[in-house]
């Protein structure tokens, strides 16, 4: 999760440095849907996040009733504001339990109650600044923010719903300090890298410029998710058809540039039947790390690299992060949509 800097942050010219770095923890909501915490819940939205657990007796009923009131006052669909309740007891709180809890407090659309793997949720809570030692002592905090403007506030969960509501409205109305999304293109690195054919390319000028791109991170000796991920991209490649190499490119960047020389990458690419328009990139350590960290793919330990796929239209903007092992046709459709 380290250095998983949300791409949108870069694109909005690093609007708010003190914005909490919200990780893309894989969570499950009350309907059992898998979501990426940042990309699917927070990104581009105004959010109010509280912290609960379903077997909690005294405080959570009150926190949740307050959220319910805020939801009501925000009106239909919570006015586009996302309400999020994160379980601080993810081991016990299955999606099913969250669903019943949600029903108890009449949580409506736009309100996600999420749980997940204990270690990962703990990391998420840490990143949000509400690490919990003992769930019975968990702080009744509500974290309110606007991902676009970078406005973030914390209020007590026991504050009256009116206070929470006002803060949410402030957050929703806040403006980014520097709204120059287009100018942010210059934040794309243009370092020199090598393709699997040994060709020297400039990352932005030669590969990204004017294209719709799908970018993932991998390394060839990886025993975990890389093979399924690459195999899945091979399926995505099929769905992209002749668009691949024309206006859409797939870019797989190694997080292990020392071992993954162009010839190693070539063999790997061939194994998965990569066609022209799918680039496997390596290069000098410094150049590769530079690109990775700009894209949020830099990791200290290569085994921790992310299995997220960044899909975006470089010319027009519009970026999505999705799981690289998700349904291949759906992934291809995201790219085709953005390329339109």
């Amino acid at each position, binding site marked *: 999760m380290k250095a998983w800097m949300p791409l949108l942050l870069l694109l909005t010219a690093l609007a708010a440095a003190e914005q909490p770095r919200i990780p893309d923890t894989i969570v499950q909501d009350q309907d059992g849907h898998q979501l990426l915490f940042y990309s699917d819940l927070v990104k581009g939205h105004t959010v109010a996040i509280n912290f609960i657990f379903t077997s909690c*007796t005294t*405080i959570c009923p009150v926190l949740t*009733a307050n959220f319910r*009131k805020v939801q009501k006052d925000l009106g239909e669909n919570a006015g586009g504001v996302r309400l999020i309740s994160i379980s601080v007891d993810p081991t016990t709180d299955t999606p099913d*339990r969250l669903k019943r809890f949600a029903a108890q407090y009449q949580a409506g659309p736009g309100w996600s109650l999420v749980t997940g793997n204990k270690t990962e949720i703990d990391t998420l809570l840490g990143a949000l600044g509400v690490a919990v030692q003992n769930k019975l*002592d968990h702080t009744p905090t509500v974290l309110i923010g606007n991902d676009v403007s970078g406005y973030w506030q914390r209020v007590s969960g026991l504050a009256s719903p009116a206070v929470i509501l006002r803060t949410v409205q402030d957050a929703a109305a806040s403006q980014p300090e520097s709204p120059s999304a287009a100018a942010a293109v210059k934040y794309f690195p243009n370092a020199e890298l090598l393709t699997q054919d040994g060709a020297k390319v400039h990352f932005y000028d030669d590969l990204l410029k004017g294209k719709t791109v799908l970018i993932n991170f991998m390394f060839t000796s990886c025993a975990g998710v890389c093979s399924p991920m690459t195999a899945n991209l091979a399926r995505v490649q099929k769905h992209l058809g002749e668009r691949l190499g024309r206006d859409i490119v797939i870019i797989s960047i190694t997080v292990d540039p020392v071992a993954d020389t162009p010839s190693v990458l070539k063999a790997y690419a061939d194994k998965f039947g990569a066609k022209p328009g799918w680039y496997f990139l390596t290069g000098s350590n410094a150049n590769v790390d530079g690109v990775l960290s700009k894209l949020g793919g830099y990791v200290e330990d290569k085994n921790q690299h992310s299995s997220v796929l960044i899909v975006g239209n470089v010319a027009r903007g519009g970026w999505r992060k999705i799981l690289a092992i998700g349904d291949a046709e759906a992934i291809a459709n995201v790219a085709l949509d953005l390329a339109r």
Partner: protein
Amino acid sequence: MRMLLVAALLLSALTLDQQHGREIYRRGKFAGSAVGTATIGAEGVPLPSSSFACATCHGIWGEGSRESGIEPPSLVWKRLMSPAVSPVTSRRRTAYTPETLRRAITAGVDPSGAHLHPGMPRYSMPDERLTELLAYLERLGDDDDTDPGVTATSIRVGAALPLSGPLEPAGRSIRETLEQLFADASRNGGIYGRRIELVVEDSGGTAAGLLEATRRLVAGDRVFALVSSFETAGDMDAGRLVETAEIPLIGPVALSPHDKNLPNAYVFYLLPSLYDQARAVVDFIAAKEAPRHPRLAVIYAGTALDQDVVDGLRSQAARDGLEIVSEQSDVPSAVTTVLARQANYLVFAGDGAGLARVGRELDQAGNGPVLVGFISTAQSGVGQLPPSVAARALFAAPALPPDTRQASAFFSLLQAGHSPRTYLGLRTSAFAAGSVLLQALRSSGSRPNRDSLVGTLERLQHFETGVTAPLTFGPNRRVGSAGAVVLALDPASHDFVVVSGWIAPKN
């Protein structure tokens, strides 16, 4: 005079009104539905009172609680009827009267009209219900405010067992074992001085009879908990009944379901599901044959339980890297197909008659795959297997057979009661269920209540009954063990021999 009155009050059981009041206090409900609404804050959204039961904040016996800095006070009558200081706001208040108490509950103000902390909801409910709630508050936590089935000297538990019909001997052996176990515990001091009484209702051994017997036990709140009820395979209706009545049922003599979702919160199964037994079998075969990769086949009959076997095989075969070369329902050509695919092991998921028939077909074909069956569903077919098939066959069992286990407590009980060594499987099930109940009661403290019994059971970890695998439950876990032991048949004596230790399936 007044003293006498108070003493008389304390010595009486709860009146009907007070019992209704207790349901409102504990669950926010009357006759199973929310009594009204609860609202947090002056302009909050009214939510069902069942989402804000008094007991969750003020404690089952009105002892108060403390969580994340909010401290709902004790609601013991004596405290309410005296001046006191709020532990939350440190505000002093005078004594409540019944009128100001009603106002506190409905308007959130103390006797002097000052607002209570917003953590105390405002309730709206019919006057009658509020009167019942107040009637109960007057008794809350006193010595006679005990859960149904509990008195100062006893705890009554129930079981629905076949005491008539063809299964009568089975029911009798379960009852006998439970009675011996509870008598033994009562002789040794009981549970905080309370003896355990068993109430048995006759189920006649049928699904409808079980439902009726369970209904009789549940109705009128005669028992505190249920134990060892005897279910016919796959029947869940009685389980639903106890869930609605919120009465824990420990160790039904039944096949445990495979809980993909949140299980019925009130039924605690002891023995592994067929799903987990099948997974353990695959691990056994994989380990036995390593480094070879034997080919598996499965023939299954139509029930949901048989499907559990197939699911377990699939999931564990994928994990262990074994191939299932044939997966078929129990059709006439099934064995021929299995032979054509050259399977090394044929797992049969179905009843005893099916097992015996598949065994005969394998016998005619000669040197075919090793047949694997499940004691839980097909024990009756084991004796009918042709010798050539029986000699190589393997069987998964949900617990070790009695003679090989650390079952000294069980056997000494049997001996002390001069019980015959018949129906050992049922007797061990009953023994295990009764032992779990006793253990959970001991850890629930001197004021047994059903909620804390469920909580204690959920915290039970690696509990040794001596006659089952160690049992563990959890907030989302209602089947106490997972795994199997593998048996073979001794060709000479036709007795089972144990060929594995307890196998907990690898995750």
